[in-house]
Structures are given as structure tokens and as C-alpha cells.
């Protein structure tokens, strides 16, 4: 795909999906349950150690 086609691809995509209209109601319980199920599977097992070990040095 050339750059030109690529750029065109973006805007086509933008138009076609139109960033889907949102549901107007509050997020349903179902949504959150789905999220949790997905996350349960990958969450670090020892949260306390994991958090304690995440130490960064200064940045900008």
C-alpha cells in the first residue's frame, strides 16, 4: 500500500466507522463483567510485590 493509499485508507475508515455513536445509557453491568473476566486472566498474581517493584527513576 503506498503512502497515498494509506492516507486515503485512514480517512475512508474514519468516514465508514464514523467513530460509532455511543450508547446513551450508563455502562451496563454486562460491560464491566466482560472487562473483569478479560482482566482476571492476565492480572499479575502477586499485586503487592509487583507494585512495590515498579520503581522508576526521574524523567522529564
Amino acid at each position, binding site marked *: 500500500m503506498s503512502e497515498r493509499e494509506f492516507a486515503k485508507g485512514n480517512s475512508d*475508515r474514519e468516514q465508514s466507522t464514523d467513530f*460509532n455513536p455511543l450508547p446513551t445509557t450508563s455502562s451496563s453491568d454486562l460491560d464491566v463483567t466482560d*472487562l473483569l473476566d478479560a*482482566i482476571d486472566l492476565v492480572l499479575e498474581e502477586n499485586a503487592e510485590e*509487583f507494585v512495590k517493584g515498579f520503581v522508576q*527513576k526521574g524523567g522529564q
Partner: protein
Amino acid sequence: MTPGEASTLRCHQIHSHKVSQMSVRRVMGIESEFGISNPRDSSANPMLLSSQVVNAYGNEVMPNRIRRMRWDYDVESPLRDARGFDMSRAEADPSQLTDDDYGLANLVLPNGARYYVDHAHPEYASPEVTNPLDAALWDCAGDRIIERSARLASTLTGDLITVYKNNTDGKGVSYGTHENYQVLREVAFSDLVKFLTPFFVTRCVFAGAGRVGIGQENIEPGFQISQRADFFEAEVGLETTLRRPIINTRDEPHADPDIYRRLHVIIGDANMSQKINYLKMGTTAIVLSMIEAGFLELDFELYDAVTSMHLVSHDYKFETKQRMRDGSEKSALEIQQHYHQSAVRFLSETKESDEMTLDVVAQWGRILEALDSDPMSLINEVDWITKLSVLNGYRNRDQLLWSDSRLAAIDIQFADLRPDKGLARVLQQKGKMELLFTEEQIAIAVANPPSDTRAYFRGTCVSKYVDQVAAASWDSVILDLGPDVPLKRISTPDALGGTQAASHDLFETSKLAGDLLANLMPEHVLA
């Protein structure tokens, strides 16, 4: 090398044209410092890890690069030193390279980005792009590059090295995601400060990435909208690591300084949401357009912008109002709505209607409306709301307090860039966070520069002549044609020059770097 030895060339095919003032379109880019750790050894040296990560990637994608490809800080820097290190990467044992290059990793990538070690973090500075959608795309390309790098470095070292697109460790340290926008020099800096400050203080209502913990060192349990807000301590200033200012005064334009400044924005969070990244860049560009056009009128100023910045971030239930200089009070959403309404008026009066600008304005309005009426309905779009939904789900299901380590772990893991471990990435793959780009589009941006800025010239030089690129910077490419020839510096002073349209034929007819120089010379040689 003395300055006289460097032949400075200017690429006159480069043609300058001004970006329309009434659009989201302008030269921009995003630079991000990433969190990095070895989860099995928290004492691991982060500078070494960062160097291993950057070099592992350089070795994979540019095995034949000049041994120490450099960033061209200055035409007078002692570039000739590069001569001593031009053994190609392919000849060296990869295990030797990381220690040897400790602290020096500094690459220019085929997609035109800069990729290097800054302080104790790997940093990816995207190539210059001309619009917010491309800014989000080439930023996302950076995520894939960093993730790939960490995987390669883990294999090479036998350790596990993980990278995070976040901005704090929750223990007092912050690292930045900086946006850059080319802005007309003729705009008074005091106007930028005046008109941007209320926008920046409240922008996190949709652009925040969410954070577990209040205060720089998480002294108070809880949730807040922004990763970065608590680390800001001044209204205006030059610093980026101490007493961080809401408006940063760094001014290296990397363009004609008489016409442009580069606005260096340091208040933002790193976004996993592709759409929010796009809207963050797009809305900011719109506000800049209005300031440049002299259109924006504000009848308000914040009484204490720094305090408000903290309060807005802490107020995820939208319960507070900010004190204004005239004694009135406004909520963060009201301030954002003021900017949005100005943008709507600006568009109708200027009759500018490019599609992306209209889209940004429309989505900005829709999101502000949703934040006002039902914030949690933005669960699939806005980083902090996705994160908060997950956290609330755990709090309710497992009866967790905000001080529980599991919630802090979720915050960190949200930004893990691995597709199988990073929570945002997992949610994106499951369709729980909306995407703007396909993986195929992202892969193209990993390997290729944008076509419509000088990043095309830089990136193509790196792809085509990798064993002859001694150094590069935003406004130059330095070629090494051999031991007896002075280094040649090609200047690219115009961000909108060196595009595919301007330089495609030049590259087609220039098989080697020497051909490129021959085709540029002699009329482009400056003293």
C-alpha cells in the same frame, strides 16, 4: 571537525507553504518517555535496561548502521569521532553491544522517529506529521517499536524487561509525554499563556489516563483523572524535571525561528486510547488556530492555575468548581465547553471545513456532552473512564479499598505494552476500547515515515543509505561517504520540505548516498 570542513547543503526542492490557520492541520509530534522495569529484579539499572532495549531494536532493523549513529546536536559537534567506530553492527557480537553503548543509544529510525535513552527511560519521539490522526498513528507505531524492543532485549539478556506507557510510578517520580506544535512566532507568548492555561488545566477531563493514588507519592488513597497533574508546581517556566510548569517555555523551533516557534506541551498524559490521542492533539491544534487568528476571547482567567490543575484531576465525579480571577467560579466542563463553543463559532465564521477539523470539533462536543450527562457511557473511548470502570468493577466485586495493591497493579498494568499482558491492549483486542487503526496500518507506520513532512527525507535516507548516515536531527541529515571525505551535512530547515512529493525523484535517481549528494550539488552547496 571545524565548521569549515562541513559542507552544508540545502535541499532546494523543499518548498515551504504555510498551513492553513483554520484547521487541525499543522506540524506536530509526540515524544514519550516510557516506564521500564525488570519485574524479577527491581534493582536492575534502568539506564542499562533502556540502552539494551533501544539497541536491541536498532540491531534488528538497522544491522548495518554506522557503529555509532548519532543525533546531530550541532554542526560543530565532533562528528569525526564517528570514524573510529564504524564497524558495522552485523560484525559485532550483540551481547557486547549493550554494555559498550551504555548510555549512548541514540537512533534515527526508518520511519523518521528519534529513538534513544533519555535520563533513565527509553524515549520515542515521533516523526513530524501534519495532522492529529497521523500524530496518533505514529505515536502508536512507537508503542509497537518499544514493545518489540523490550521483547528482543529480553531474549538477548535472558531477563524479562517490560515497558509501560504511563507517566508515574506512584512513588514520587514522573516522566513525560510531550506534545509539540509548530506555532506562528507572531503570536505573543503572553497570549499563548493566557489562552492555553485554562484549556490545559481542564483538558484532562477527556484526555487524562487515570491514576490510582493522590499526591506525587500516592500519600492519599483514591482515584484521579490525570497521571501528571500532581507533578505540576508552576504556571510558566523552562524546566521539565523540577517545578514543572503548565506552560513550558522551551523554544527550539527546528524551523525558521523568524516565522515559527515550537510549542512544547508537557502537561499531557500518555494515552492508550488511540481516539483520545487523536482528539488531544486535534483539540489543542484548534485552540492554537484560534489564538493565532486572534479569535479567542476569554473573559476569564483561573485564580490559581496550579491548584486548579490538581483539583480538576482529583475531581473525577465533577463536583467542584474552580475559582476564577474575577471571583466567579467555573467547573472544568464549563471551561472546556467555552473553548468548544468558540471553536464552533470560529469554524462557522471562517468557513473552513476540512473533514478532520470538523470531526475533531464534533467529537469534542459529543464527548463533553457525555461527560456532563453520563461520563461512564464513555467507557470504550476515554482512558480514565475505561480504567475507572475496571477499578470500580474490582472494588465492587471483591470489596477492595482504594489502598488495595490490586488496584494499584491494575493502574500500572493498564499501560503495559505487551498485547497479552497490557490491560488496555487486551481490552482493545476484545473490542472493549475503540480503535482508529488496524495493526496493518500501524505496521506501515513502524517501517515508513509520513509522506508529507521532512521526516520522509530523513527516514528514507536511513532506509536507503543506513551504512552512510553518520547522524541526523530534526533539521539535518549527515552523510559519511568514506574515510577521506569530510562529512556532508544536508540541512532540512523546513518541516514541510523534503516530502515524498519533493524528494521521490531524487531518491529514485540516487542509488547511493554519494549519488544523492551529486544530484543535490552543486547549486545547493552553502559555504
